[in-house]
C-alpha cells in the first residue's frame, strides 16, 4: 500500500470513464441516499417526541404506541438501520465504484434490494411501536423485520463485493480497506447476535453480553469504519494532497479492528468482573488507533484546514466529524466506567457516534456525491440550504451530545453519593439538559429536511436538463 497511483497507467484498458461509473451509481446511490436522509428526519422526529416524555411524562399519554418504551427504541433503530447503515451502503457503493474505477454490478438489483431494506426497516419500526420489540439494545427489530433486513443486506453486500472484485484499479485505496472491513464485519455481528438472542436464546446474563457486544461493534467498528472511509477519501481530495504517512494508517486500521471489538461492555452489570474490566481497558487502548488515523489525516490537511473549511462544503462536515470521533473516544475512555453506569452517558455515546461521527461525515459526503450524480455540478443547487444543513446538524449533534452527557454526569454524581436525593437530582434535576436534547433532535430533523429539499432541487434540475424538454 505504499504508492497507489490510481491513474490511467495502472488502470487496465477496459476501465470505464468517470461518467460511465457515475451513470451506473446514479439509481442505487441516489435512492439509498435519499431514503437515508428521509429516515434521519423521521428518526430525529421520533427521538424528539421520546425525549419530551423524559421531562413531561404526561406528554401523549394514553396511547401505548407512543409511550417512551416504544418511541425511543423505534427512533434509535430508525436512525441506525434507516439512516446510518442505509447511507453507509450508498457511500460504500459509490466509493467502490469510484476508487475501483468500475461500473456497479446490477444497479437495478441493488435498488430493489435497497427498496426491500426500506420496507424491512419500516416494518421493524412499526413492529416496535406495536410492542413487538425484542428488548435488546440496537437490535429491537422483531424477527419478522430482522430476517428480511438481513436478506436485503446480503444482496447489497454481495453485489458490492462482486463490484469490488471486478475493479479495474487493482490497488486498494485506504478507504476501501475500511469499506471492505465494515461490509464483512456487519453480517458477522448481526447474524451472531440475532442467532444467539432470537434463535438460540442464550440464558439471561449472556444475552446482555451479546447485545452489548453487538451494539458496540456496530458503533465502534462498522459505523466508525464507514466514517473513516469517507474521511480518508474526501480529506486528501479536499486539500488536493496525497495522503500523508500511510504506515500510520495501516497500523491504525489493524489496531482498530483488533481492539475496537472489545470496547463498550465496561458498564455491564451482573456479569463476571473480568468482562467490564477488560472492556474498560480496551476503551482506553482504542485511543491509539483512532489517534494514529486522525494524525495521518491531520498531517495531510495541515496548513490548509482553514482554507478548505471556507471553500469546501464537504470538508466542514468532515472536520467536525473527526473532532467528534476523537472527543467521543477520549470521553468514553475516561468516563465510560462504573462512575457513569446506568445513566444517560451511554445514550450520549450512541447518539454522538450515530448522528455526530457517522451522521456528519455521511451528510458531508452526500453534499459531494449527490450534486455529481444529479446536476453534474460541484455543489448542491442551494448554498443557503447547504449552510443550513451544516449548522443545524452541528448544533443538533452538540445539543444532543452535551445534553445527554451533562444529564449523565449529574445522574452519576447522584448515584455516587448516598445523601443526595435521587428523584430531585437524577430525574427532575436533569430536565433542563433533556430539553436541550429535544432542541437538538429538532435541529437534526431541520438539517435532514434542508438536505432533502436541496436534494429535491438538484433532482428536479437534473430531470429538467435531461428529459424535461423531451416530455
Amino acid at each position, binding site marked *: *500500500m*505504499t*504508492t*497507489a*497511483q*490510481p491513474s490511467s497507467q495502472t488502470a487496465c484498458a477496459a476501465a470505464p*470513464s*468517470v*461518467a460511465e461509473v457515475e451513470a451506473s451509481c446514479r439509481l442505487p446511490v441516489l435512492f439509498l441516499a435519499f431514503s437515508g436522509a428521509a429516515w434521519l428526519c423521521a428518526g430525529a422526529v421520533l427521538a424528539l417526541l421520546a425525549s419530551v416524555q423524559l421531562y413531561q411524562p404526561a406528554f401523549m399519554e394514553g396511547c401505548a404506541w407512543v409511550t417512551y418504551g416504544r418511541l425511543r427504541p423505534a427512533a434509535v433503530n430508525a436512525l441506525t438501520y434507516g439512516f446510518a447503515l442505509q447511507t453507509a451502503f450508498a457511500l460504500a457503493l459509490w466509493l467502490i465504484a*469510484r*476508487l475501483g474505477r468500475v461500473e456497479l454490478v446490477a444497479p437495478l438489483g441493488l435498488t430493489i434490494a435497497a427498496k426491500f431494506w426500506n420496507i424491512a426497516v419500516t416494518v421493524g419500526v412499526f413492529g416496535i411501536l406495536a410492542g413487538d420489540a425484542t428488548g435488546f439494545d440496537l437490535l429491537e427489530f422483531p424477527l419478522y423485520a430482522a430476517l428480511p433486513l438481513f436478506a436485503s443486506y446480503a444482496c447489497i453486500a454481495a453485489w458490492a463485493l462482486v463490484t469490488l472484485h471486478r475493479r479495474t484499479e487493482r490497488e486498494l*485505496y*485506504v*478507504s476501501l480497506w475500511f469499506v471492505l472491513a465494515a461490509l464483512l464485519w456487519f453480517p458477522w455481528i448481526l447474524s451472531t447476535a440475532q442467532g444467539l438472542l432470537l434463535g438460540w436464546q442464550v440464558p439471561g446474563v449472556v444475552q446482555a453480553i451479546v447485545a452489548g457486544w453487538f451494539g458496540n461493534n456496530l458503533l465502534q467498528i462498522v459505523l466508525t469504519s464507514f466514517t473513516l472511509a469517507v474521511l*480518508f*477519501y474526501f480529506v*486528501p*481530495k479536499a486539500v*488536493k*494532497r*496525497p*495522503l*500523508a*504517512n*500511510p*504506515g*500510520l494508517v495501516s*497500523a*491504525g486500521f489493524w*489496531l482498530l479492528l483488533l481492539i475496537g471489538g472489545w470496547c463498550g461492555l465496561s458498564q455491564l452489570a*451482573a*456479569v*463476571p*468482573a*473480568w468482562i*467490564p*474490566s*477488560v472492556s*474498560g*481497558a480496551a476503551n*482506553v*487502548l482504542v*485511543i*491509539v*488507533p483512532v*489517534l*494514529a488515523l486522525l494524525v*495521518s489525516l491531520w498531517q495531510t490537511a495541515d496548513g490548509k484546514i482553514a482554507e478548505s473549511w*471556507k*471553500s*469546501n462544503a464537504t470538508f466542514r462536515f468532515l472536520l467536525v466529524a473527526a473532532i467528534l470521533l476523537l472527543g467521543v473516544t477520549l470521553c468514553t475512555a475516561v468516563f465510560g466506567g462504573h462512575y457513569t453506569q446506568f445513566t444517560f452517558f451511554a445514550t450520549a455515546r450512541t447518539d454522538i457516534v450515530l448522528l455526530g461521527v457517522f451522521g456528519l461525515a455521511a451528510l458531508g459526503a452526500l453534499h459531494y456525491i449527490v450534486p455529481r450524480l444529479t*446536476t*453534474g*455540478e*460541484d*455543489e448542491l443547487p442551494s*448554498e443557503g440550504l*447547504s*449552510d443550513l444543513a451544516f449548522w443545524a446538524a452541528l448544533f443538533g449533534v452538540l445539543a444532543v451530545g452535551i445534553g445527554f452527557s451533562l444529564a449523565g454526569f449529574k445522574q452519576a454524581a447522584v448515584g455516587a453519593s448516598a445523601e443526595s436525593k435521587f428523584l430531585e437530582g437524577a430525574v427532575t434535576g436533569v430536565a433542563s439538559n433533556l430539553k436541550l436534547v429535544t432542541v437538538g433532535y429538532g435541529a437534526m430533523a431541520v438539517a435532514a429536511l434542508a438536505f432533502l429539499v436541496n436534494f429535491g432541487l438538484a433532482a428536479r434540475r437534473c430531470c429538467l*436538463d435531461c428529459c424535461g424538454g423531451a416530455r
Partner: protein
Amino acid sequence: MSKNKKQPAPAPERAETEPTIAAGGGSAWPFVLLGVILFGCFLHVENTGGAFRADVYQAGMKTPPPQADEPPEVKAFKRGAQLYAAGCAGCHQATGLGSAPLNFPPLAGSEWVLREKPDRLVRIILNAIEGPITVKQVAYDNNAMLQFKDIYSDEDIAAIATFVRGNAEWGNSFGFVTPQQVKVIRDASASMGSQKWRAETLAPIP
C-alpha cells in the same frame, strides 16, 4: 463556499483525480503508546478483573472465599433456624423456652419434642395442637397455634424439626429429620383436614 456554483454542467470527461497515497511514512509512536497504555491496562485488569473467574462478579475481589459444600444436616439446620425465626419464634421465643405467663409452651427440653422419633413434633407442626397440654410439669391451654401444612413444604418442615430437635443451645440433641419422614406423616394425616391435634389424640403416637 465554492465560487463555481453556477458553472454549466461540466464535460463528462473532466479531470477527476482520486486521492493518492504519499510515499514512505510509518511511525513507531503508536506502538510505543500502545505498549505504555497496555501496561496500565494489565494493572487495571489485575486489580479489577477478578482473575478471569466466572464466579467473581465484584470488581476488586480476586478470589472468592472457599465455599465447601455443607452436609445436608447442616444446611437443613441453618434453613430451619431461618424458618423458626420467621414462623415459630413469635410464640415459642428465640430461646425455645416459650412463656408460661403468656401460655406459650416451651420447646427446649420438652418431652413432646425430645422423643426417639420426630412423629409427634412433625404432626404438631403440620396440623397444630389445641386444648390442654402439660409440658415439663406446667399446664398450658392455647388454641392459637397455626397449621403449617399449607405454608411450608416437606423440606421446610423437616428443616424446622431438625432445628428444634437438634438445637444444642437449647439442650436438645436429637438427629436429622428428612423430608421423606415428613411426607409420610403428611400423607398419613391427610384425612384430618384442618382439624388440630389434642394432647389426648396425640398420645398414641410414639
